């Protein structure tokens, strides 16, 4: 990939506010990352860290009490964070598409799946109904749904979870968008089905040149699909690295804690059964984010400065001069 190519999507210093009776809080703060054309980037974190609402804000789908409170979202050079609703609607589906965790709630239960795919062609490409239906069947074949002509007239409830997710992918990729945002797309699926969906996503997006922003709590899954991974904690990005490096050489104490605390297949055979290294404490709620570094109450390395000064996202000094490594960033006073 040419390092000089203009990025497809730039998120700059994103800030999302949450307004409650008890006051306003910054649910997401200082989030910045870029996605190049055809690139795969992952956003990893636990529930409540802000990864899903970051994705929603890119699509312009935030609803009160959440709202964009600052920052810019730039899609191929054009700022989109304050576009009027009609223009945002034109973007959605055509240039940015999104798939969700639970396809049963994202698909219309009253329309056959073929029709839901066909609607995309009619809406965004002005195709006729007949043409659109035909292309819908093709789309189902592309996502490897067996007997696509028959499946096209099925309703969502007649399909299994894996099939429904394939339909979602077909709808999302119908108009060949530049960016596919996938929010926990496989969490509700069985492991073997998950593996198939992941392979499908990788294959299709590579073929169509679609970039992927993958959101998940599963670090392993994200490193499988994505080239670059951003780790989020309590509304901030705390680490950003190339996938291989994240697992083998995590830099932020939170990421290190996560990797060390998970029981991974193969560890016991190699190292015997050791007590898992726990991360103390609990994930803070939005209304009770600690001052300074938000991870400091749970961090084994924290010192006085961590309690007051918010660390900046700074580049790592690495020997590798490739563009991916140059993007390695950590937000910690004591990283490494």
């Amino acid at each position, binding site marked *: 990939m040419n390092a000089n190519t203009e990025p497809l999507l730039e998120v700059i210093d994103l800030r999302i506010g949450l307004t409650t009776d008890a006051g306003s809080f910054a649910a997401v703060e200082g989030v910045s990352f870029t996605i190049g054309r055809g690139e795969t980037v992952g956003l990893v974190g*636990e529930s409540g860290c802000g990864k899903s609402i970051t994705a929603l804000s890119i699509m312009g789908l935030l609803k009160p009490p959440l709202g964009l409170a600052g920052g810019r979202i730039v899609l191929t050079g054009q700022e989109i964070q304050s576009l009027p609703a009609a223009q945002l609607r034109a973007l959605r589906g055509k240039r940015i598409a999104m798939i969700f965790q639970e396809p049963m709630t994202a698909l219309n239960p009253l329309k056959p799946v073929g029709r839901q795919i066909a609607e995309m062609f009619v809406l965004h490409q002005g195709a006729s109904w007949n043409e659109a239906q035909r292309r819908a069947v093709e789309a189902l074949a592309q996502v490897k749904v067996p007997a696509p002509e028959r499946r096209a007239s099925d309703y969502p409830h007649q399909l299994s979870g894996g099939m429904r997710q394939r339909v979602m992918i077909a709808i999302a990729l119908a108009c060949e968008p530049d960016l596919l945002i996938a929010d926990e797309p496989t969490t509700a699926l069985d492991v*073997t*089905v998950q593996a*198939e969906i992941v392979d499908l996503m990788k294959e299709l997006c590579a073929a169509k040149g679609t970039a992927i922003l993958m959101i998940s709590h599963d670090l392993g899954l994200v490193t499988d699909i994505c080239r670059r991974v951003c780790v989020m904690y309590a509304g901030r990005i705390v680490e950003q690295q190339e996938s291989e490096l994240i697992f083998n050489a995590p830099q932020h104490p939170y990421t290190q804690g996560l990797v060390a605390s*998970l029981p991974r*297949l193969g560890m016991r055979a190699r190292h015997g059964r050791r007590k898992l290294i726990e991360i103390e404490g*609990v994930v803070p709620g939005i209304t009770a984010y600690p001052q300074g570094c938000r991870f400091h109450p749970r961090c084994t390395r924290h010192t006085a400065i961590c309690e007051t000064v918010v660390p900046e996202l700074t580049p790592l000094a690495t020997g590798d001069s490739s563009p991916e490594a140059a993007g390695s960033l950590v937000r910690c006073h004591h990283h490494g």
Partner: protein
Amino acid sequence: MVDDKGAGAPLLSIEDLAVHFPIGGGLFSGKPLMLRAVDGVSLAIKPGESLGLVGESGCGKSTLALSVLGLVDATRGRVVLDGQPVGSDADRLAVARTVQMVFQDPYASLNPRQTVRRTLADPLRLHGVSNAGEVADRVAEMLRQVGLRPDQADLYPHEFSGGQRQRIGIARALILKPKLVICDEPVSALDVSIRAQIINLLLELQADMGLSYLMISHDLGVVEHMSDRVAVMYLGRIVETGGWREIFEQPRHPYTRALIAAIPDPLTRGHAREKARGEIPSPLNPPPGCTFNPRCPHATDHCRSAPPSLAAVEEGHLVSCWRADEFAPVPA
């Protein structure tokens, strides 16, 4: 691999258990379909041993757990717990003192209108502990053992975090001092950064109290970490069983290999050739012959016509596959 835990009679013995449910039928629908949730399972757990049960949706692990608890009757075969058969005519209270369960969802498994004290003390009173002082002592002791403070006993569930609620659930399961605990996905619903706390706690309690575990999970990493023996279940049958090392280092059944290949972890990546194809079939309509054949990368005509049964490939390692001998151990 030598199994050195708990010599002697097994604590739990499941003998050719089958649980079938008729679905549909009635006046206008004709003959009902048979849901073969559990279709011929034989397992044993020794005292102090941990058996990991691995499987995806529709494999019957929930029904198997309910059968062990005596909440669902067997269509065929039987479950023997601590020498006594378990079923709807067994002594409900005696069964409750022998086997208990830790549930998956910490947000739904505690009664929101009861204090922690009541949730823990009531079962004691139900089982005949009438001395108020003894009840209070045991409640306090149990809370300490699960890492909570006795003074938290008078709080309500919503005042605790997910991880703490799971600890309370574990306390409830252990308050009657059972011998066998069924852990149904004990950490799946918890935040990733606190799973280690609960896993460590469960292992600690097992050592302290001499418990046996039936650990049901889809997370192979958790199963490997916590089990002595592992059983892999697919569509109501056990397809492979053995010690943890055999199952995860030298899996022989194509489904086991597919499960391992499906894990997106750099440590296990590279077994891509072994992935299963297609969707899990409905247990209402299982495929003929070996139930895994439509998805198996190695299926032959013989596999499609005749169902295999569990046979030993080596000491303590049983596989239900016609071609088990042909599969070389997957490289580590």
